């Protein structure tokens, strides 16, 4: 589904008088099937924006429309992947994926089995979250969101806590899913390579107040090769943008 964000602003009120302007005048049109990555320093309002898109935060100015309809609240059609997996610790993998849906239902069972295949967790259906590695837990969380067949999948630094190998693997899993289902993806990251590897559009967010300062299209065919020249050229473009915005710092590259 398409996502349209019009003049969205958000102010947090801290204590008595203090106000934190987290977002200011965000305008964005995202087409059905786009894979948009948002990059920016921590504290610039990325999570705040995603929470608004998810319907989890409804105290904001401006308007958000999904598929041409105003957003009313959180729901399964706006899937959300948090930075931490947020699985239910008392449910095993397959029950976490099913969550409120009964595994005894043949249709649910089949979908769960298919998803276990997709995210490559066959053999771990009965494992509890505490028995999983970070990557496996995050794959379970992705399967849980996908089971609900979301129109838009919102991902808030989903692979930030993972090691480089696991991260690359999960990026590929995500691309496979996107190519198969053409779900609109909005992924927040602070890893420049990740933003180029995944997105067909990169949005650069700047701080205080948080706003989108640049949109960079990425017209490279998938799967992309991080070592090749066109990739590196886009990387340079993104770096120049970040530097000119005075944002670039060592911290961001390392993630």
């Amino acid at each position: 589904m398409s996502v349209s964000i019009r003049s969205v602003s958000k102010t947090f009120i801290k204590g008595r008088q203090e106000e934190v302007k987290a977002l200011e005048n965000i305008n964005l049109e995202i087409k059905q099937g786009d894979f948009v990555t948002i990059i920016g320093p921590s504290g610039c309002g990325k999570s705040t924006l995603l929470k608004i898109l998810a319907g989890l935060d409804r105290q904001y100015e401006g308007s958000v429309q999904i598929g041409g309809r105003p957003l009313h609240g959180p729901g399964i059609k706006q899937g959300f992947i948090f930075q931490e997996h947020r699985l239910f610790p008392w449910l095993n993998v397959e029950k976490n994926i099913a969550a409120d849906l009964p595994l005894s239902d043949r249709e649910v069972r089949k979908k769960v089995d298919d998803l276990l295949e997709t995210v490559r967790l066959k053999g771990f259906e009965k494992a509890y979250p505490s028995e999983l590695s970070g990557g496996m837990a995050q794959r379970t969380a992705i399967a849980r969101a996908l089971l609900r067949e979301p129109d838009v999948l919102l991902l808030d630094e989903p692979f930030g806590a993972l090691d480089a190998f696991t991260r690359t693997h999960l990026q590929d899993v995500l691309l496979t899913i996107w190519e198969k289902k053409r779900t609109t993806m909005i992924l927040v990251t602070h890893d420049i390579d990740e933003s180029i590897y995944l997105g067909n559009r990169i949005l650069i967010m700047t701080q205080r107040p948080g706003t989108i300062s640049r949109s960079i299209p990425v017209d490279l065919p998938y799967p992309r090769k991080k070592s090749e020249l066109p990739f590196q050229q886009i990387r340079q473009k993104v770096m120049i943008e970040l530097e000119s915005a005075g944002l670039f710092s060592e911290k961001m590259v390392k993630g």
Partner: protein
Amino acid sequence: MSKTKAEITAGILPDSIHHSAEKEAFQRLNVGLSRILKGLILPLIILAVWQAAGSLGIISENLLPVPTSIFQAFKELASTGELWNNLQISSIRAGAGFILGAGLGLLLGGVVGFSNKSEELMDPSFQMLRTIPHLAVAPLFILWFGFGELSKILLIAKGAFFPVYVNTFLGIRGVDSKLFDVARVLEFNKRKLFTKLILPAAMPNILLGIRLSLGIAWLGLVVAEMMGSSEGIGYMIMDARQFSNTEVVFAGIIIFAAAGKITDSLVRLLEAKLLKWRDHFKGEKGEI
């Protein structure tokens, strides 16, 4: 490091975790056995010294009967049927009081945990009642409800109520708000919110409350039965004391201890079953 390893073996050794779980269980059993044996050393020494001191006449048989005569008293009580009769009556009292108190505690703890309004309305009163000791209300209960079963059961229930009430409340308030966000995104309905999120998340606390409450139910029973009764283990102890039957006093105390321990173990068994997911967690923490 173990992360990537697990990822790689994901496809090849799907049940590798179950093997390690088995091994772990075996090791735990071993550790458990040796721990029990170690735990027995001290009590056995004490028993031996006690028996010796009594037999040699160092301690008066009236104040501290030797283990063998306590055992003898047990045998007699059991053979006349007095023991079973008293135990049955005490168990019924403790059980009824516990079910009433803990049940109400679960219910009201749940209600107060759920809604801020009912917390403001009811919690202060409960907190006030909580600090009143058994012995202080016992005379009042007798005045109101007489010497019969009702006052006894209510006294036990009063004690059993609070641990479950407080812990259910804390359990519900302690549910991770991040998981509430997940439930909102997944569109859980009210019932699923309760059965899939709140209840399992609060379960460790609820079970803790039940364990504490069971202990207090036995305490309440002793107070109730010593207050005035013609049956029950508490009465048996009081009666024996009057006739300086110290062995029977000891036998009664041992029965209380054993009953308390057994009920506690039952709850722990329930805990092990319901909180299996947490057990796994402990296992991993030990590894790191």
